[in-house]
Structures are given as C-alpha cells and as structure tokens.
C-alpha cells in the first residue's frame, strides 16, 4: 500500500536551485534536513514516534535504507522516501548520520 510516492532526490533537485552553490556537502546536509524533519538531526523529538539515526552503525543504516528501497523491509513512509535514493545518496546519508554524536 502506497502512502507517499514522492522522491527525496526530486526534493534535492529543487533545493539546489537557490543562490548557494550545491556542494556535495550541501546535498548531504540537505538530505539530512529532509530526514531530520522526522528523525531529528541528533535526536528525534521526545514526543515523536521516529527512531533516532545519529551515531548509529553505518552498515546498519545503509542496509536498512536498501531494504526500504527494495521493500524487503516494509514501512509505508520509509518505502516511499527510500524509493528515490541513489546508492550514493544512501552512502552519503549513512555516513553523515554515523558521524553525528547523538
């Protein structure tokens, strides 16, 4: 069952059209910002039902995102968010979150 059919990469494209040049880091930070809406940057809200990502094992995060992408792990929301992520996006985001101290 599909709840969302939007892609994060589409969102990233629309972001890079602003006056700041889109460096690789900017893209990563931006992706993180999309994810942080629910997961928080360091911690999700005390009140929110989303799992934390900061400081988690990099391989675990990559695997989870691949599983969401190919729908071997089911979550209406994450299946649709991960659907638009490239391998590079997944590596970048996983690396980004792993390095953050929660």
């Amino acid at each position, binding site marked *: 069952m*599909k709840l*969302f*059919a939007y892609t994060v990469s589409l969102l990233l494209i629309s972001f890079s059209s602003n006056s700041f040049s889109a460096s690789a880091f900017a893209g990563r930070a931006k992706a993180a910002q*999309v994810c942080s809406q*629910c997961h*928080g*940057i360091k911690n999700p809200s005390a009140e929110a039902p989303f799992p934390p990502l900061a400081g988690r094992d990099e391989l675990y995060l990559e695997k989870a995102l691949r599983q969401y992408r190919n729908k071997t792990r089911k979550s209406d*929301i994450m299946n649709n968010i991960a659907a638009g992520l490239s391998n590079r996006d997944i590596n970048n985001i996983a690396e980004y979150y792993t390095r953050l101290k929660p």
Partner: protein
Amino acid sequence: MTIKTTFNKSLLAASIPLLLSTGSVFAKSGSHDMHKLYEENCASCHGSDHGGYLAPALNSETLKGRSPTALRSLIMTGSFETLMPPFFARLSDSEIRSMVKHLQSTPKLANPAWNIKEMKKSLKIYVKDESKLATAPTYKIDSMDDVIGVAARGKYGRGQGSEAVFINSKTHKIIGKVPTNTAAHIIEFNPANPRWAYVKTDAAEVYKVDLYTMQAVRSIKTGLNGPAIGISRDGKYLMVGSFVPHNAVILDAETLEPLKQFELEGIDPDGKMVSSDSGMIIGTPYADIFAIALENAGQVWVVDLKEGFPVTKIKNVGRHLHDAFLSHKGKKLMVASYDDSIVTAIDLETRKIIKKLPAGCVPHVGGGSVVKVDGRTLGFGTNFGTCDDNTVVSVWDLDTMEVVKQVPVSGGTESPAAHANAPYVAVDIITKDRRARTIQLIDKKSLEVVKTLDVGGHAYFPEYSADGKYLYVSAGYAGDEVVVYDAKTLKKTANIPMESPAGIFSRGRVKYMTRGLSPDEME
C-alpha cells in the same frame, strides 16, 4: 516575535506529488471530537479561532478548493524547514482524514470569550508558600544578569520538548529547565527582583518562574493565543495581550491575579472601526506605564499604572503594527508597521508621534537594537519581507530621526542583536532556503555586512550575553541546539542541545533596556 501573514507553501510541500490509498493503515478511527483534537495538536500554531497565528489560517475559506489528499500528506510528513511537524503515527490515518474534512468545513471562529472570570479560574499555584524558597540561587553564578533564557518550542509546540531553558552565559551550561506545557515564546525578567522571570507561551499562558530554584511557582491562562507580555519598571505589574481573543490584561506580577482587562478595538488609519490583535507590550524604565500596539487598529495605547489604569490612545501610527523597541532612556518608542513599511517614532512623554521613518520591506524589528557609535544613537531594524529581492536592515539616527542607511543583507530578517562591547550587529536571515541557516554580521562603524555565520537549522533570535562577550543564536526548527560564538573572533564556543529553540532573552537586558545600549545610557 510572531509572524502572522500569508505563508507561501514551502517548495517542498508543493513539489510532493501524491498517490494515497483509500484504505486506512490503522485499525481504528472512532468518532473524535475534532475540535478538541485541533485544540490539542494544532491550535497553538494555527490559532484557536482557525484564523492563523504563527502558522497559516486553516478554515473553510483558506483551504477552499485544496486537494484533501495533498493536505493529508502534508499533515503526515510535516512541511520541511518550517515549524510544521510530521503527525505520521502521532495521529491515526483516520484522524488525519477527519481533521482535513473538519478544517475544510469550519469557518474562522468568532472571537471566543475569555474574560477575567475564566482567567481567575485558570490560575494554578505550584508553590504555596514562596517565603520557604531558597533565598539565593541554588547553583553557582556570578550575577543573575548572566542568566540567558531560551524559549524551547518543542517540535510539536507542546509536550516534553516545550520548556524555558536557562543558561549561565559565562559557562554556557544549562542551569535549569522549566516545562511550559505549550511552546514558550517570550521570557521577561523582573527588573526589581532578580529571582523572578515570566514566561509567556503560544497558548497565552503566563508562568511565574523562580530563577533561584528553577521552577514555576504559578501560572495563569490569559487567552487562547498570543505572545505579548511586558513588565513595569517597578516589577509590580505585568501586561499581557492576545491574538485570540482580542484583549489584554494587567496582572499583579506577584500573584498573577488579573486586575484589569482591556478590549482591543479602535478606528484604524483608514477610518474603519476594527477589533484588534494585541501586538507588542512593553514597560519602560522611563515611567510607570505600559505601551501596547493594537495591530489591526494601527494605534498605540499608553496605560498609566495608577488607579483605574487610564489609557491614552495614539492613533494613526501605521497599518498593521507589530513589534517595537525603546530608546533614549525609554522615552522614545519605535513601532514597526508591516503594511506601511515604516517604523513610527513615538515620544512617550508627550504621547505623540515624532516621525514616521522609512524601513525596508515589512519591518519586523524583533527586540530592536540601539547602539552608540561615534556620538550618534543608531537604531537597527530588521525587515522580514523580500520585496523585489531588495532585502535590507534599516539604520536610523535616533537623535535626529533620520535614515542613516538601508544596509543590504542576503535575505529577510526578523531580529537584530547588538551590544555596547561587541563590534557587530547580528541579524538573522530567515528567507526559506539555505540562507535560513545563517546569521549576518554588520560592522557597527562601516555599516556593511562583514561576515556570514553558517549556524545550522533555522538560525534566528541572536542575543548577546550581558557582558557582550558571547553571541547566542538559536539553530531552530530541526537544528535543535543553541550555538554560542565569541563576539569578537566569531569562533564557535559551545553548542547547547534543546528541542526547536526560538527566542533568546538575556537578563542583562533589564539593565540595558534595549539590545545594544549599555547601562550608562540608563542613568
């Protein structure tokens, strides 16, 4: 302060094409009291009357013709890079569906009644005998002026993340957290007794906080929405105002008992009788008065703190007033008018308009900033509009009441910070893209932007520590921390985590009156 204006839908929300299923993922829907659900989850941002507050109005008029599917998805995911949080899994799918229906069929509600009687009933006492409280701070601090209070909104504008967080601005350590139930918005410090602070929340509750023991001792609900709060120079009275309903009330600062209520209405600059939101309310070191801006009526009322609390009305101040700041020992009041793009200077002694000064596009002066530079008293005003990409910070000579310069900055701005000992005036860029992460610094002497700091999150509400050595900035929205910089070198000194931080208030400011002025200017 707050923004109540038309919002553009964020880039992101607009670019989400949708395909929603008809079935519910969640087992149960049940018949909910939608109004209650709205009050409990949405009203503190969108307004109890569905008329908008710091988020857009949600009613049958504003949501007419909008796709229910798109609205549902926006409510589930939230709107990225704004304060709109994701309600996925917090509300069930069927609750969100019913909510959309409810919003699209509910007109903006009439001004609800919230009078002295309701206020009195809402008074809560957490500490019965204040005389038993410790008589000095229960933590180490050189001076209470070093206390900085941060209004942590909490992601959902209520609940566990919503608290007033107090920090020692010399050590950058948290000295206390006071839960506020709904998002804290403004923190006022008692000028006469350093132990008391007052926190106003978006749901118009006022908390009296004991800074020595870091706890709330009392609270009262003075309305349904609205941030305005001011304190008298003798620390005896508070005046608070609401957007919903349109009233203001004077409270006894010790007991929080309401003393007198004011209905906010008057003839606007276009000659129409209107009921009005409460804009800023300010006490002044100059006299025993409060000044209050009637947003829609374009009037400033001066209330004398004596028998009967008589009011002097200053009319035709400008269209859609909002916030203001003081200068000249608290005698001059500079009031921002959104719709006329001016800042009106008022003499609080004669209670007359001195002059209307040109500002930038939609002036939102925040707490304002005033600094003495080479013998001149310079006022700095931020502007949050972005007309024709012409974004400036206005600088006025407040002695002669002339424009000195409109300083180009990289986007809309919402609040400035200055300090007698700090070389730069900090302004927060709030334009909704990468720029929102930044703070720009204007050199006091050259009046040019000399540096841009990448703070992160939605960077806003800069404030200097009482000694002017540190610049505090909220990395708001999902940034979830307050970032501290050395005021001279601009090196990052500390990060202080908290949920969706917003307004930052230094206790030092009760002495400085306005950000930037030094205590000598107060003699």
